[in-house]
């Protein structure tokens, strides 16, 4: 497992970097509107009726944006949490922590792919 993680490290760092760069850009608007604005009534709930959300999300660009919105923050989160764990707890727990976190990110990315294909 350690060797596999070493071999995958360039890919994981790439996904982590894109998670910070693109994930941050996408999450800002998503959280501001869907997470805070609509629930607090700052933005009208009519903006994201099912019909409108589906028509936006089911386009090719909509699917790509939604996939990136889910998958990239997962990789950013997993990699950052792994390194926080290394900083705070050392190498001893890494053989469990790293596969667990990257496994969640990989499974979440796979489910995100399925979710956007279903649209």
């Amino acid at each position, binding site marked *: 497992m350690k*060797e596999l993680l*070493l*071999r995958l490290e360039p890919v994981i760092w790439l996904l982590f970097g894109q*998670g*910070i760069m693109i*994930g*941050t*850009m*996408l*999450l*800002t*608007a*998503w*959280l*501001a*509107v*869907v*997470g*805070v*604005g*609509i*629930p*607090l009534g700052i*933005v*009208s*709930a*009519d*903006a*994201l009726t*099912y019909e*409108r*959300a*589906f028509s*936006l*999300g089911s386009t090719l660009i909509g699917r790509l*944006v*939604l996939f990136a*919105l*889910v*998958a990239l*923050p*997962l990789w*950013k*989160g*997993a990699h*950052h*949490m792994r*390194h*926080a764990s290394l*900083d*705070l707890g050392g190498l001893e727990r890494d053989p469990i922590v790293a596969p667990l*976190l990257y496994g*969640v990110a990989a499974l*979440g990315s796979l*489910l*995100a792919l399925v*979710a*956007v294909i*279903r*649209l």
Partner: protein
Amino acid sequence: MARPAHPHAMAPSVPGRTRTAPPQLPPQFPLSGRYLPYTLFGATGILYLLAGLVALRVVWALGSGPAAWQSTQQQLAHPLYVLFHALTLAAVIFVGVRFFRLFPKAQPAKIGPAKPPPAPVLTAMLYGAWIAVSGGLALVLAGGIF
């Protein structure tokens, strides 16, 4: 055709005796002085991971039909969800500001004949892209355009 190097290709067959002192954590680590923003930066990982999972749930509900979508929207209005999303929004802005400030400093001086743009230009480009993407997506989501 060249193969990728084995990760341990350069490692000695027998590890040599270390002559360095064992590593020690600085007394300020992890929550004092300059380590505080570093630790907080790492801690944003859990919020990104959870935000990604919540977004997955929302996208999944969109593919499951109007009833599932409506139910998910109602759940997102729960105060705990709103609090989580507000905290995550603050974390995302913190990460963006810290990372986009760091990014120009982390660029190589040259890649072949090409040089990166000056740091202020790079910073302006990153912030410009962030504002453009966030503003555009927020307008789309809020029904301002399309």
